[in-house]
């Protein structure tokens, strides 16, 4: 472990000759490294304790759950909680729907958000400050006040769902994929984050490219965007995860079961008059799993970026 660790720490610190001083430095670095690992392990463990608790709970029987004092591990490992929980709602449909919605939101956000972020960061035009600050300001009104107007927009969408040109007479986008995918497709925070990432890139690239006669869109798509892969991964991950966990909006704009999402399914276990903890935790564990896999997939885009290209 230490060999690899030493090899890959900060550049510029790589020992040149194996003299005495370098060896001393290596030893010191190794002990720093062990300390670092211990600190990180403790931190990581603290972060995941609630999840371990969740998984343990998902395997307990109701009798076990009522135990006092609570047992750390299940007395009987009730693996059947998982299939039982999955039976409580049509989770295969919910899962598919959640996936479609999240993927849709992510694609719209990456396409529109990156473009807008680039424009706001790198193209000087009058009014961009106002546009940018307005975007940020849009985030400052809580969801719960915006949701009724948004619902009305969806319902009175002209020409859809039997509506006339004034949006009267039908149900608009209610009960359609449009309502699930379009309104939540782009958030101002994604544009904001993209802007900040494009800002942190050096100016020389664009100036050179513009002198070379490259169109602005090509500069955006071919020169700058490949440099912010970590940002793309970040925005994609955060957008996907937020849509995946969204609950209220899909519940409001749909009445049909075949358009509902995974979080709505999990709400079945969370009733006013009693929670089925074991099923809720089993369901939540299963719902979290795809997000963890997505993270592991995305996370390889964080291992290198602009820095390794050696551009000044």
């Amino acid at each position, binding site marked *: 472990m230490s060999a690899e660790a030493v090899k890959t720490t900060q550049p510029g610190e790589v020992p040149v000759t194996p003299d005495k001083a370098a060896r001393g430095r290596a030893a010191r670095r190794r002990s720093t490294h062990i300390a670092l690992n211990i600190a990180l392990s403790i931190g990581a463990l603290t972060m995941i304790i609630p999840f371990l608790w969740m998984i343990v709970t998902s395997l307990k029987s109701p009798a076990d759950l009522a135990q*006092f004092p609570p047992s750390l591990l299940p007395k009987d490992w009730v693996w059947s909680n998982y299939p039982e929980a999955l039976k409580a709602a*049509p989770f295969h449909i919910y899962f598919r729907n959640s996936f479609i919605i999240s993927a849709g939101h992510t694609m719209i956000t990456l396409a529109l958000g990156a473009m807008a972020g680039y424009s706001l960061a790198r193209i000087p035009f009058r009014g961009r400050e106002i546009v940018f600050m307005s975007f940020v300001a849009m985030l400052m009104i809580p969801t719960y006040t915006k949701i009724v107007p948004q619902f009305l927009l969806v319902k009175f969408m002209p020409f859809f769902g039997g509506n006339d040109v004034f949006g009267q007479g039908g149900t608009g986008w209610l009960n359609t994929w449009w309502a699930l995918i379009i309104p939540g497709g782009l958030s101002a925070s994604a544009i904001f984050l993209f802007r900040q990432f494009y800002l942190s890139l050096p100016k020389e690239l664009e100036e050179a490219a513009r002198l070379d006669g490259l169109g602005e869109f090509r500069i955006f798509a071919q020169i700058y965007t490949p440099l912010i892969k970590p940002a793309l991964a970040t925005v994609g991950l955060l957008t996907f995860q937020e849509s995946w966990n969204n609950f209220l909006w899909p519940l409001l704009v749909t*009445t*049909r*079961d075949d358009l509902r999402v995974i979080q709505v399914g999990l*709400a*079945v276990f969370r009733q006013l*008059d009693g929670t089925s903890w074991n099923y809720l935790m089993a369901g939540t564990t299963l719902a979290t799993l795809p997000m963890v896999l997505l993270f592991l997939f995305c996370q390889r885009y964080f291992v290198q970026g602009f820095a390794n290209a050696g551009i000044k």
Partner: protein
Amino acid sequence: MRMIRTHAAAVAFAATAALTLSACSSADGGTSAGDGTVSGDITLLSPIFEGSEGQRLLEDELLPQFYAKYPDVKVTVDYTTYNQLNEKLTTAVASGLVPDVMMMGVGWVESFADRGVLANLSETGLTQEKLEESYTKEIVEAGMWEDSVYALPIMLDTRFGVARMDLLREAGYDAPPKTWDELTEMSKALTVRSEDGTLQRTGFDVQSMDPRQMFMTMLFSAGGDLFTEDLTAPAFNSPAGVDALEFVSDLIHVDKVEDIGFSSASADPNPLVNGRAAMAIAHNNVWSQFEKAAPELLGELQPFVIQGEASGMFFGGTLATVSAKSKHPEAAQALMEFLASPGPALAANEQRGNVPALTELLDSDYVQGNPLVQFAMENLDVARREGGPAQWLEIRGTFKPAIEAALLGQQTPQEALDGLAKSAQTAIDRK
């Protein structure tokens, strides 16, 4: 695991029973005649029948019976949960797209009827007198607004005293308390603290449910009312209300029967289940909790009405309503009546472990097999509900912090209730 299967089997059995029952009762049920003139596509908003099990019950067992009678009606069900019912109804009303049939809670009907969202059922023949043949007076009134009927009750959630007789016997008692004094005395005797004073077992748990509903149970026990007769002013800060809150507060601070935070509405399981409480104000579904977690103790559960100046028993519940703007009022009304009829109502109650509103269902196997539900039904004539003025939904939200403030000792019961009454009065007077 085995318990779960048994449970599923029980539901399946209930559904079958429901089939038979509703077949029998269909002869006298319904004001809209089943002559085929009733038709249309209607929507149903339901916070119950959720999940696959509930959905199967509604769509595979119950609705086919409805269709058999009304072949030209098509029902689309919008399932939600109670937690999100407010949001669903709010957006529905705001957009004018109100479901034809809506289920809502006790205390909600007043607001929605007052604002003209609900159809007046008295005008269709479902009068108060007619309903009182099938339900107790108080339950019928839960669906009424300004002398007209707007809702049919389906299921009730009741709160009353529950004792663990095994723990009572250990302490030398062979029956639950019959008066407040007995309640205090027994609670003290049943409370167990370790040497350092840590509470091991409370004699009487008052914290496992919403503070508002706990307070109301005690308010009714003290003989108090929520509002004046004409619903223009709050009455819960009457001497009876103050007595009720003081009684609970004293249990905690003077008699040291329970510590703040020992239990909470969100804490599962109920402390009765694991012996952390000997008695409690509990919901009838504590029976279901015991069935799952401690079936061997089912026989030790003894329900009791908390008896003070009056009988302390509280009910909320679910009622079915029809939209005033329904395009197919006959179909909507037929569905509402069907859902409230004995068969479907029994099945819905059984699925949730709740108390049927229909008096006749006392004799059903389900009720006879669940002593807490049976007890609740036998005492429905003394049970009282929450609600009253059209602004109830707004007022009820302010109860919890006020009751908590009193129990925490931040305010005296009188101060807390007076403050609460003041904000309630403001809400009632606002137009």
